[in-house]
């Protein structure tokens, strides 16, 4: 399977990655070869094999529903570029 330029641009957009125009050909080639490897893996007969959700042979541990976190807003927001009235400020988003 091979990707073209527009696929790479779309993937970059979905991941919110800004890529250099000049790097697109090499990304296209690298990603295509990864997909080729996956194509090869797809040929393996997996009938009768349970899909694997996690490689660890274990099940999820559960937590009791008890508050264990205290308010650490001041500490947590000390690394934020912009804060006001306790809110994190971000570039304006309106749908």
């Amino acid at each position: 399977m091979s990707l073209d330029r527009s696929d790479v641009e779309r993937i970059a957009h979905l991941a919110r990655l800004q890529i250099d125009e000049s790097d697109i050909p090499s990304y296209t080639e690298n990603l295509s070869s990864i997909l080729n490897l996956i194509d090869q893996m797809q040929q393996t007969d997996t009938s009768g094999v349970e899909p694997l959700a996690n490689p660890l042979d274990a099940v999820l541990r559960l937590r009791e529903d008890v508050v264990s976190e205290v308010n650490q807003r001041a500490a947590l927001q000390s690394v934020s570029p912009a804060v006001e009235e306790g809110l994190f400020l971000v570039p304006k988003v309106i749908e």
Partner: protein
Amino acid sequence: MEWEVVIGLEIHVQLSTTTKIFSGASTAFGAEPNTQACAVDLALPGTLPVFNENALRMAVMFGLAVNAEIGKRSVFERKNYFYPDLPKGYQTTQLAEPIVGAGYVDIETDDGVKRRVRLHHAHLEEDAGKSLHEDFHGMSGIDLNRAGTPLVEIVSEPDMRSSKEAAAYARKIHAIVTTLGICDGNMAEGSMRCDCNVSIRPKGQETLGTRTELKNINSFRFIERAIDTEVARQIDLIEDGGKVVQETRLYDPDKNETRSMRSKEDANDYRYFPCPDLLPVVIDDSYIDAIRATLPELPDARRARFIEEFGLSEYDAGVLSSYRAQADYYEQAVKACGDAKLAANWVMGELAKYLNQSDTDIKDSPISAEQLGGLLVRIKDNTISGNIAKKVFELMWSKGGSADDIIETEGLKQVTDTGAIEKIVDEVIANADKQVEQYKAAEPEKRGKMLGFFMGQVMKATGGKANPGAVTGILKQKLDALCN
């Protein structure tokens, strides 16, 4: 052309756990912004989710209540998208292996249409934070207190055929989750939010039309109005030769219109994959059976029992059983007064009126079920009339106290003493020559209607305390005597 409406609902229910689904931060409503958003909720590097057992238990309760298969193995996945109120860049949710499989609920609309609505599945996921767009010098403010609050998303099949059915379905889900106690059901605070998928097709056609999704509707009334508005828009569009575009639309209750929010062309770009931070959730029969044993009586069963045990109408039983706190209150009031129908009338009438007007939940009613029962006992034994009872109710609501105390201190006891009533009737007749003449002149069969004036005078003279039945009898007897 005759059109058929096809509706499917996605309902998000906030679970009333104490803490978040994957962190030990509190979920209490109304806290200062970001004071309940811990490092896990903020997706700081190095943090890992730990699953809240209570969220799992509540999801299983819901599954059992809607006759669904419970997923003994369920898997959390990542749904990837970027938005500032989603710090991780993905929502942890379930897709291929949800906790609750296919189930169903039975609904009935106000006009008596009955239908079984199938549930496709219900899954556990986390809520996002809140974005505030007003007045931050061109920036948006983000509050992540809500981020990580556990949700169950309930996805129905496209089984509903009218806006009324959709609203009845949403009410039924509301009744179930509040009865189970897994959600506070407060739609105004966003504890239950509803997305409606709406399409139309020519009647008789098998294939579904293109649907639009109406987002985040937060009242039952708006569900009906939003769907009606959207259906009318789609019909106009198609009949004018246009095409419905698959998209998300927002309902504006002020203008009563829907408008395009964003096109769903990127619908398949969420790039779901199993969350590597969370192992599969595995539960066994004993876990499920233990939860089954704790289920309360569900709304359908309670409704049937109210009809059977109390002789209520289907409508009354439906209303009273739709909210657990109200049903509990009602049953206590019945116990206290021994008259199921009288209690039903008062709980759904006067009490509901006062609760609505003051926007009070029945759980916080200033009049307890026992107090109301005490009042109803006095109506039953003729101590007070229905009208005076309303006055006692009002005083009880504003000042508290038992019905007996209020009747005593306010001197509201009904006058049933015939001698006393006769005396007042005599006075009223003596002071109403004109009306007495009119009464005498009237055709005998029209005289009944003319009693109203005299009745009013007697009630005025007694402050409404005279027994209406006794007054009518005495008035009629005395006036008719004058006619002969």
